[in-house]
């Protein structure tokens, strides 16, 4: 049943993109590792690490789109799930350092030693095991999303109210993780990682492996998301986004619907964070910053929300732009990026995917069922007496 379900996800354009992702997951490490640096097809280390990072961003954007694009839950706190996944992975990596830390303490991470901690806090136990870590990568963000969603959706918190409390959530976590007393290294976060599963992190091969893992994770998540949105459940998602109370009158348990996608999405975000951390070598509370979560929303909007490929494109485009601008126009890049955001909103109202769709439409006369749903009208514009 599961495989049949997933197979449904592998249709149309998604199948192609998934195949492409699987291909680069294999090909990029190959081109990076086995070709000589001066070979025309060689992919430089720098590009591998850069794009490895982008892939995790893309996964995060995809996760957000599942709740925002399809279910209308504008989470301004998705960065929190990403960061939690990152911290889980960071804790594992910290514990892998073992006695190789600067103080040579076999158990305590360095930051605990110099702040005079005597023993490992209970919540650090188990993270020396990879299987446990793997479990926690999904469990921690998933649980937070579940508990948060359970209350919020049951209380029928919607719209901006929901957005703002998700922001409050990530902001509170930001402040909490900044606190040194929390035992997560405060502002400096977790750093100085040495190896993952026995592979040295500062090694091209490991990096290529992480790239590959990120591409596969994205590929699988894409298929899963596609399977979800193509099922009848996907239609319920959209129905919920559009007219939540109407869906209730049809007998759908809207809070369960939301809770399910919210939790699945948080887990995907956690996975993205977990893959991100070993690639960038640090996790710090800054990842909880509300601005980060807003940026994810922006990637998604730029790519085209309510499409699965859009957020992937958006995340990669914006970050590529950012990487490029910050080096090419270090003093003026904010003008460029800001103008880009404004321009996309004005001229590509449905993002890159929307623009591509309308270009395609111009060529093919026959109008297909629109896949980019129109964004709902604001609460203040609604009137009338029905539901």
């Amino acid at each position, binding site marked *: 049943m599961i495989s049949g379900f997933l197979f449904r996800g592998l249709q149309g354009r998604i199948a192609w993109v998934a195949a492409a992702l699987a291909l680069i997951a294999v090909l990029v490490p190959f081109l990076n590792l086995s070709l000589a640096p001066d070979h025309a097809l060689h992919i430089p280390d720098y590009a591998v690490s850069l794009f490895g990072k982008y892939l995790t961003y893309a996964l995060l954007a995809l996760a957000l789109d599942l709740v925002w694009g399809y279910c209308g839950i504008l989470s301004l706190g998705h960065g929190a799930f990403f960061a939690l996944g990152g911290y889980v992975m960071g804790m594992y990596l910290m514990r892998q350092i073992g006695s190789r830390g600067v103080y040579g303490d076999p158990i305590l991470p360095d930051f605990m030693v110099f702040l005079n901690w005597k023993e490992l806090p209970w919540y650090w136990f188990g993270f020396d095991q990879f299987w446990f870590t793997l479990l926690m990568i999904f469990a921690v963000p998933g649980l937070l999303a579940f508990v948060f969603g359970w209350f919020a959706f049951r209380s029928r918190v919607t719209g901006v109210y929901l957005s703002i409390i998700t922001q409050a959530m990530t902001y*509170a976590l930001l402040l909490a993780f900044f606190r040194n007393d929390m035992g997560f290294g405060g502002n400096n976060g977790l750093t100085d990682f040495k190896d993952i599963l026995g592979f040295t992190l500062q090694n091209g091969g490991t990096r290529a492996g992480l790239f590959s893992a990120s591409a596969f994770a994205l590929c699988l998540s894409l298929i899963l998301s596609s399977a979800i949105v193509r099922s009848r459940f996907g239609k319920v998602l959209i129905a919920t986004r559009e007219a939540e109370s109407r869906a209730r009158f049809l007998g759908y348990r809207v809070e369960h619907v939301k809770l399910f996608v919210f939790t699945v999405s948080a887990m995907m975000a956690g996975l993205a964070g977990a893959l991100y951390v070993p690639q960038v070598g640090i996790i710090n509370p800054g990842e909880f910053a509300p601005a980060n979560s807003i940026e994810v929303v922006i990637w998604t909007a730029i790519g085209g929300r309510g499409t699965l490929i859009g957020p992937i494109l958006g995340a990669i485009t914006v970050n590529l732009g950012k990487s490029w601008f910050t080096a090419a126009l270090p003093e003026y890049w904010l003008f460029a990026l800001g103008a880009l955001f404004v321009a996309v909103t004005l001229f590509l109202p449905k993002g890159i995917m929307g623009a591509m769709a309308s270009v395609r439409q111009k060529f093919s006369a026959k109008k297909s069922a629109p896949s980019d749903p129109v964004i709902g009208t604001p609460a203040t514009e609604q*009137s009338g007496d029905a539901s």
Partner: protein
Amino acid sequence: MSLPRALIACLFFLFAAPVAVSAQEVDLPGSIAQLAQGKLKDRAAKVEILLKSGDPRVATVLNQLAEGTLYYRKSDKKVFLTEKTGKTYALTDPLTGEEIKDQSKSNLKKIKANNSLRRTIRDGLSLFALSSSDPDERMQAAETVFKSKDPIALPLIEARLLKEEIAEILSLLNQAKSAIVLSSADMPDTAKLEAISILRTMGGRGALTLLSAVEAAPKSAVAQATQLAITSIERRLSIWDAVQNIWYGLSLGSVLLLASIGLAITFGVMGVINMAHGEMVMIGAYTTFAVQQAVQIFAPGLTDYSLLLALPAAFLAAGLVGLILERGIIRFLYGRPLETLLATWGVSLVLQQTVRTIFGPSNKEVVNPSWMSGAVELAGLSLTWNRIWIFFFALAVFGLLFLLLKRTPMGLQMRAVTQNRKMASSMGIRTPWVDAFTFALGSGIAGVAGVALSQIGNVSPNLGQSYIIDSFMVVVFGGVGNLWGTLIGAITLGVANKFLEPFAGAVLGKIFVLVFIILFIQKRPRGLFALKGRSVEQ
């Protein structure tokens, strides 16, 4: 605090007074010249010697030393009193009063003082000032003596107590006397008891400290009186502390209100998720800076009032930016509120960088006018002027806005347009104009808030970012679209924050407030002042 001539005059008078008793024969020119020699840490001893002289000219020298305007000439190490006039200095010989004008800074070197030296000077000079003819100086001297508890001052105070006519100073002198009495070992119990009762009426932490240090035989009258006084003061203090805390909460609330009130229009009323709101506040703050600079150049006399000029200027500047923003971008996005988030985020990046490019990345100095500096002591409360002004200013802005929105035809049109733009147009309302006006108004108000906020915080390109999250929290917590909600929401969050802070610390306190907001929204999913009824469902 510069030394007025009056002090010198009264020092002459003092020659006949008790201080003269302690005056010693001192080699004045030599001692003054000594100030220019040696290291800073040896200077205290030299100052002590000068103070002993009791010579009125010494007060001037020492005051200038404390103020950092005492220099010596590099060529001959001669010490001078200085006054800066334009780019040059006028030098005055401290002993002869002979003046040399137009000296360049490069010929001179400042004689440094540090805090402990300044304290020594202040304490020493306060003895002189106790008999000054200027009541302000006597008042300050009494306060200084209260802190220094210098027993030498006792006879001076007693002499002055006989002559003093101003009640306020009289009580300060009594307090200073009590402080000395209580901190010296060999005082009669009657004097001590009197001192205790004076301190008990005075109250406050200073009194408490003195009383706690009183040493007396257990069960003695002094010990009992002390104990009673301490309990009484502590009780009063705890009440005042609570009141003070409420004030802090109200004051923080008023800052939140100011920060969010413009957003209550652009987001609350218009539904634009205005991520550039903070930057409108920033524009207001930079306008304040610019106006202040201009005033300093063109009308230095009005510097104290540059804020008043800045208010309309900031309103117009931020309003104009808002107008351009609305006409250029927002108007294409009505009905697509989520896209306004994206576009205004882009705008906020551009505005930040624009300000960084024009004004540079670092903080700009906005001076507090004198009427917004310092604090007023009110019973057990200490209220700083800038917070008081900001509190009332926030309420005034709120009140005006409330009237505009609820009581004027324009307000009605604004609300109609934002609820149903097409229908409003069909009712004959010029919707583009109303949209532009509303957005400009919200932005302008944010700008005005920036004027006030420049008085308590940074004026930097990041200014907007530090308010944006709080602003959204307030508007949403209060209930989107409800102006009262914004008011009550801001005040509630401010007070809650200030009541949590003492227990939890600033960091945890803030976390608790956020958690409180999250939980509160569960109870009231549409904010504090939710719009109710059919009209809002779905």
